[in-house]
């Protein structure tokens, strides 16, 4: 009996930890769906970027700090770095899709292509000059940026007249798939195809014993739960009670009417990308920070899919729903993983989803929206 109970508790703890990671990613899906009504398939890949940022932060940039400093520093780096990447993706692809391509997009695309110049020409410069790798990358990118931007502005001014913005959701989805493929393959090109893992010094295994029941887990898992809870609570507060939160809700309800209130809709949309992406990035760091789960550049796809399923399960558009759905899914998955059906662990999320959608199409916490006739 005690063995069974121990097994159950262990799986529930693992499930909640896994669910917290899903939650951190799912919130981004649900927020972007709220404002733009499309599934941002590239979101899972931001998680992957977070994992790599964590790898380089813990193993490189921050390796001189104390263990706690390392963790907090890496977490902050992931939040900021992935937030910026999310905003950049939105600015690079989704906004031109929405508003049409124009001269205002010149600098973003300039920066994008310039970074490729830095990537390819940078190493050459490094060989033939006293500059370090990073410096030569920055220098080449900067020069290329200065050259590309005016050229692209000119090109986009021309293109802007013939390119019509598209509100088609399918187009947005294909773009997201394109971005996802780009991040994944570019990630593999830069980071290599071998699975990586790292271990932050701040985390250690914990053994809890009480009444004959022993539970083993890494303190990192507690941190995941804690961070996920704090971050999502903060987010719910922001969306419910602050002026920016009201603006986010207004934009997701009616972007045009919101613009007429003086709400900068594009900036609010970018902000939701920043928030969602930084949370996903944090998830990427936390989930891999204690060295138990190796990862490579394609980690984001499967995990992203599942997080998306969690968001739908909880009711897409609702932040609380996404968190609830994610925790539920994490626990269910781990219960199945510890049972005779463990081979079907990867399918259980989708089975639960389909069953729930059959009975409650709006998801567990979603609200019913009737279409106006």
């Amino acid at each position, binding site marked *: 009996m005690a063995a069974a109970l121990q097994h159950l508790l262990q799986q529930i703890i693992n499930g909640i930890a896994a669910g917290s990671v899903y939650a951190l990613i799912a919130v981004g899906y649900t927020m972007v769906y709220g404002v733009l009504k499309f599934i941002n398939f590239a979101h899972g890949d931001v998680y992957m970027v977070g994992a790599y940022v964590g790898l380089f932060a813990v193993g490189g940039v921050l390796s001189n700090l104390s263990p706690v400093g390392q963790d907090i520093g890496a977490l902050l780096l992931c939040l900021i770095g992935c937030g910026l990447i999310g905003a950049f993706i939105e600015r690079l692809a989704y906004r031109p899709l929405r508003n049409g391509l124009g001269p205002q997009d010149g600098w973003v695309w300039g920066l994008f292509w310039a970074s490729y110049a830095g990537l390819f020409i940078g190493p050459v410069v490094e060989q033939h000059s006293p500059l370090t790798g990073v410096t030569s990358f920055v220098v080449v990118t900067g020069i290329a940026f200065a050259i590309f931007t005016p050229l692209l502005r000119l090109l986009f001014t021309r293109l802007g007249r013939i390119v*019509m913005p598209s509100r088609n959701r399918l187009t947005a989805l294909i773009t997201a798939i394109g971005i996802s493929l780009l991040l994944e393959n570019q990630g593999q090109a830069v980071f290599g195809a071998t699975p990586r893992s790292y271990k932050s010094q701040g985390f250690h295994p914990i053994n809890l014993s009480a009444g004959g029941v022993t539970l083993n887990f890494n303190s990192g898992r507690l941190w995941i739960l804690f961070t996920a809870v704090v971050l999502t609570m903060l987010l719910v507060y922001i969306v419910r009670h602050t*002026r920016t939160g*009201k*603006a986010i*809700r*207004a934009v997701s*309800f*009616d972007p*045009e*009417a*919101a*613009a*007429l*209130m*003086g*709400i*900068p*809709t*594009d900036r609010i949309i970018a902000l939701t990308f920043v928030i969602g992406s930084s949370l996903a990035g944090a998830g990427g760091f936390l989930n891999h920070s204690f060295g138990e789960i190796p990862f490579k550049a394609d980690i984001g796809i499967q995990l992203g899919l599942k997080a998306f399923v969690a968001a739908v399960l909880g009711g897409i558009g609702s932040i609380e729903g996404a968190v609830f759905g994610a925790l539920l899914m994490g626990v269910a998955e781990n219960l199945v993983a510890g049972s005779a059906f463990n081979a079907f662990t990867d399918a259980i999320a989708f089975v639960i989803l389909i069953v729930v959608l059959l009975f409650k199409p709006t998801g567990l916490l979603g609200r019913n929206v009737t279409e106006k006739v």
Partner: protein
Amino acid sequence: MMLQIRNLDVYYGAIHALESVSLEVEEGEIVTMIGANGAGKSTTIRSISGLVRPRSGEILFEGKPIHTMPAHQIVTLGIGQSPEGRRVFSNMTVRENLELGAYTRASHHAEVKQDMEKVFHQFPRLKEREAQLSGTLSGGEQQMLAIGRALMARPRLLLLDEPSLGLAPFLVRSIFSIIREINAQGVTVLLVEQNANQALKIANRGYVLETGRVLLADTSANLLSNDSVRAAYLGE
């Protein structure tokens, strides 16, 4: 000159929605645009507020070109709008809607509070329903909310797109008297209306639009006595 539109051309894909439309609004006036559906009234309003980008021509607000500005910046210049179909945020309360109306003035807490009281004073019905979700309001109340919300930004020019649409006849009359009151408080009004008769009665001047072009521009009195206008738009 408060608002000046010069030779505005707007396209929706291949459709030429506005053809060389020119229009002027003086400070303190009520100016109305009348015409059938599809004549380009709403498109003109939407171009002024930055929701639609003109292909050519210009829009000057107090001498400043605004046709290249994003919609949210135009609001900060002092142009407010009650859009067609009201478009209140029906998932939020009446109060939250009004707060969003003052989004650009969030730093002036005391003033915003004052303005809200003013709106509640003008529309006592809204005060009664302050904490109610605006989706549960009746059509007339939603229209009041849409106008009140636009006023919260303290606009100097108020764009009203079909404020009487779908309202009971007695409510239509009260909406028009409210517009007159707002104007008396010093807000310039550009009004788009199906209800040409009522609109011309309160307006100083009127523009008649047809298939994207300005057909006639004159004082309201002259338009009201113009035979072709009477036949086509006043139903006599």
